[in-house]
């Protein structure tokens, strides 16, 4: 106890934590107001708003899974090279050679779980009517986040570069080939010609834009890797910040208005 006291009275501790231990009512308020990580919360909250049977905690779990994916994803990037030569072998090595061999499992199952918890979160928000005014716009942001979650999972699916990966992405991205006007097998693309020359071919259509090639190959691997590790996570992080901020500004955690 005395050691704990000494540590908490030390200059180092006090420089890090701007508040005393949250042991009494005053300090429990102060801790939320003055801590960077906690200040996302209000100081007090309606008791029913945090009942697990009401919220299911699915939004929070989704965010936690996003953090798990970020941490395990960064660790995986240490071991993985997105090239035809190395991608598959690096995944093999991750399984067979690297210590703590469940890194990829944590990342993959976390990703599946994140898709499911996002759906459940949306389901709960619908069932409690929490998309109604004044929360309409936050629901819209949520829908975009749902779409980005699916795209994160989809782009990550290709990276192991095994049969499962390449063919799932081939089947999934074949749809883009049929985009109206912009896919080379889509309705109406025949109409986009200039001087008898087709504007939309298999080397200029929506699918080519997605894959960076006519078929799923090295360009696709590189493209999906960059999207998966940088572009989409950044977009998600930004939208998450707005999503959380709007929860506070639009009347706090859901409940009857």
């Amino acid at each position, binding site marked *: 106890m005395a050691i704990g006291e000494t540590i908490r009275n030390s200059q180092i501790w006090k420089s890090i934590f701007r508040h005393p231990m949250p042991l009494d009512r005053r300090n429990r308020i102060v801790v939320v107001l003055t801590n960077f990580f906690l200040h996302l*919360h209000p100081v*007090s909250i309606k008791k029913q708003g*945090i009942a697990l*049977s009401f919220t299911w905690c699915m939004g929070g779990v989704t965010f936690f899974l996003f953090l798990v994916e970020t941490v395990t994803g960064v660790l995986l990037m240490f071991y993985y090279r997105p090239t035809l030569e190395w991608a598959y072998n690096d995944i093999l090595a991750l399984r067979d050679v690297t210590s703590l061999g469940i890194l990829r499992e944590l990342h993959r199952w976390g990703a*599946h779980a994140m898709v499911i918890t996002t759906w459940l979160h949306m389901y709960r928000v619908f069932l409690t*009517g929490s998309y109604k*005014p004044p929360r309409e716009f936050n629901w819209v942001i949520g829908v975009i986040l749902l779409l980005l979650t699916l795209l994160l999972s989809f782009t990550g*699916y290709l990276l192991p570069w095994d049969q499962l990966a390449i063919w*799932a992405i081939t089947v999934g991205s074949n749809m883009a080939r049929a985009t109206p006007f912009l896919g080379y097998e889509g309705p109406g693309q025949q109409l986009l010609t200039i001087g008898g020359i087709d504007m939309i071919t298999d080397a200029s259509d929506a699918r080519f834009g997605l894959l960076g090639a006519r078929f799923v190959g090295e360009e696709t691997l590189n493209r999906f890797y960059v999207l998966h590790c940088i572009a989409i996570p950044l977009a998600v992080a930004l939208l998450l910040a707005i999503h959380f901020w709007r929860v506070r500004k639009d009347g706090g955690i859901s409940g*009857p208005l």
Partner: protein
Amino acid sequence: MHSNGFFLTDVAGFLGGYYAAIAAMNGVAAYILWRKKGQPGWAIVWTAVSVVMMVLASLALSGSAAWVPSLPASARGLVNSLSGPVLYTLGTVGLLTALFVFRRFFVQPMVAWTILNVMLVLMGLSMADENFASIVMKPDNVPIVGLVFLLAFFTWLATKQAVVNDDRIARGLPPMEKENDEKVLVWPDLVYTELICMVAVAAFLLIWAICLPAPLEEPASSVKTPNPSKAPWYFLGLQEMLVYFDPWYAGVVLPSLVIFGLMAMPYLDFNKKGNGYYSIAERKFSYLTFQFGFFVLWITLIILGTFLRGPNWNFFGPFEFWTPYKVEVLNNVDLPQMFWVGLLDKPLPRPPAGAGGLVQAGYILLREAPGLLLVGAYLVLLPPLLAVTIFRGFFAKMGFIRYMIMANLMLLMLTLPIKMILRWTFNLKYIISIPEISLNF
């Protein structure tokens, strides 16, 4: 595939633990009912169930074909022969409708607990079938099994609260969420809940990651196409739609409309009631529309695409071996063919040889006139017609633009079930088929 001893020995350990877990679950339930809820009658029932599960667990652990609890081969054969896309879809719609109509009955904890036990035991008995187990235990399919149970649980939880609230509102009371207006401090009440959730999820994920290795197949080969080739599981609903529509509609237009429709929802739902609490009675229309879209047109299609679609995207019963040699007769006919050839007994209108572009376009329009008129009437005439009949109240409250967006989204969503029914009843392939510009609908 024909079961052999090796399979049962492999799955026996899992099934033993599985039945033991159900036994433990029922034991805990019995204890809570006896000590906390004062319902000794139910406690005895679940204790008995728990004992039966322990017996099943020890039988399963034997790993012998004679002892491992399984469904009789005749029952499995019957399920296989009865199941097909039509029965599956109508069956799930019927089941969901029954759950909705009789929700007051199904939300009772003891009823729900019985259903959970039945689901779990059926799952366990099915797992003793090699064909069933080989599909369900594919690593990437395991999350979908979890999704089914999670959705069942959370739908029960939500419906239970909605039923209570609807009763209260009918009696002139506020929803129960409003009763508890007391405020608590975020530290410790919320922060600790968050911490406990994080620890629980982390522990769950760790156990999952240790028990189930991530799948890794052969190295990618662009010349060796697997059969079936499937998209990632969350897109299998879209892949299933490809049975009924061309990719431009099933894979591009419909998903875009789903996203757009979800975003538009808060601006289309003018009902001010049911904001921030569970209720069904106060918002029946939006509830049923959403549940139809989410369960019937999304979740059940994913389950169908994952577990029941095998090689060549043929339908396979849950206990059927996925043979690539299964042949299904496809004798689907386009509407122009049905109209000109079948009904009028004339050849399809064809432009004369060497005709100019405009003449060709005219002949195409004539050929496709039945389909174009049908689709045109559906999308152009139905919305105003609905506005002066069943949606009269909606139209008055929503105004022209909002009403038209809602009505069109609704009608486009219904194109999928309508096309399914037309396919099953008339073998209709396309309503409009203009291969000249790759437009088939």
